[in-house]
């Protein structure tokens, strides 16, 4: 019994140690897409949280802070023209060769007769009231997506 406790405790401690050694927040890791500063019109301003001067309107290119999402670290560059968002560029996303694990995380259900209904109407996609991820799984849209993926 005592050995079991020691083993459990050591394992737990080991896992906690491993997890704690990883970054938990926004960290700017090495850019894979270099930030080219020379070819954009207008002033470049780094928008930082929380405080920082920003252009109130008009034109400009803003490089947002690297935002920590559950997907990973993402950083965008926004081009504003006449006060409206003209262009969005994503500068940094976590891992170029990481296939979206969506398909593995949210499995598309097995093809059922539902796809026949969709197939009869020969539709490409479905619009409806917003579904949650669980609702998606039950929906026709997931059957359509799966038919396309497989």
């Amino acid at each position, binding site marked *: 019994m005592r050995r079991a406790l020691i083993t459990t405790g050591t394992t737990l401690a080991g896992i906690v140690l491993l997890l704690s050694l990883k970054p938990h927040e926004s960290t700017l890791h090495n850019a894979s897409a270099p930030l080219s500063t020379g070819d954009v019109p207008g002033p470049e301003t780094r928008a930082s949280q929380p405080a920082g001067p920003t252009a109130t309107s008009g034109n400009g290119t803003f490089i947002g802070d690297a935002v920590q999402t559950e997907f990973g670290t993402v*950083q965008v560059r926004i081009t504003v023209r006449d006060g409206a968002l003209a262009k969005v560029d994503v500068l940094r*996303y976590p891992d170029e060769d990481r296939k979206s694990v969506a398909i593995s995380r949210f499995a598309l259900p097995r093809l059922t007769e539902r796809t026949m209904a969709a197939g009869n109407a020969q539709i490409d996609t479905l619009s409806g009231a917003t579904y949650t991820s669980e609702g998606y799984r039950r929906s026709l849209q997931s059957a359509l997506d799966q038919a396309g993926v497989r």
Partner: protein
Amino acid sequence: MSAESSLRLVEPAMGTVFSFDVRTPATDEIHAALTSAVAWLHHVDALFSTYRPGSQISRLGRGELTVGECAPEVREVLDRCRELSEETGGRFSSTPAGRLDPSGLVKGWAVERASDLLYEAGALDHCVNGGGDVQTRGEAAPGRPWRIGLAHPADHEAVAAVVEGRDLAVATSGTAERGAHITDPRTGRPASALLSLTLVGRRLATVDALATAVFAMGEEAEDWLRSRPGLHAYAVTADHRVWSTPGFPFAAPLGAPCHAV
């Protein structure tokens, strides 16, 4: 028969699921744009999610930030919310029931931007579906426009109608899944004369936001829509009748009846 997709992706974000379907043959640039689009969605989620206490929108709502201190995306969204609010006589609002919550616009707007990313990378024919709000560009196949089914509000397995067209944005508002979450901001009470309302237009951000607003209009929706010729609507009422605006882009019937309400 469905046309061949060159690229498909399903990505959960913002509490729902986004489906990407690219018909233009995929190049490296389009692949990269798809990855960017996905990253963009997560970025938007991180900024705008009202479920995250640390998001800029939450902090702004609590007064911890001023608008000037927020990212330009936030300002843009709030500006457009204001415009839409005026346009709909207050029925669209970024502050329903007193909280700061521009969710009615954010999802459609994010999808529209994601679609732009793909388009600019050369994916001229694609479809992005963000939890039921759809932005299409181009066609599904050479000579064949996109066919977008409208989910039957009361039956997950049925299609109530099919919309057909090029460069269409389709958004549906309804009580179907999440329950009566749509509030009439003016009364603060649920808007429930309609079971679902689908708007069809060109750009999803506007279409998505207006769908929410028009849904809340209930019986007054038809009048309001008459003043907006660029928008088409299809509605299912609480007593299971349907109406649609004249010229609503129904798909030509293929033989099987698809109005089953």
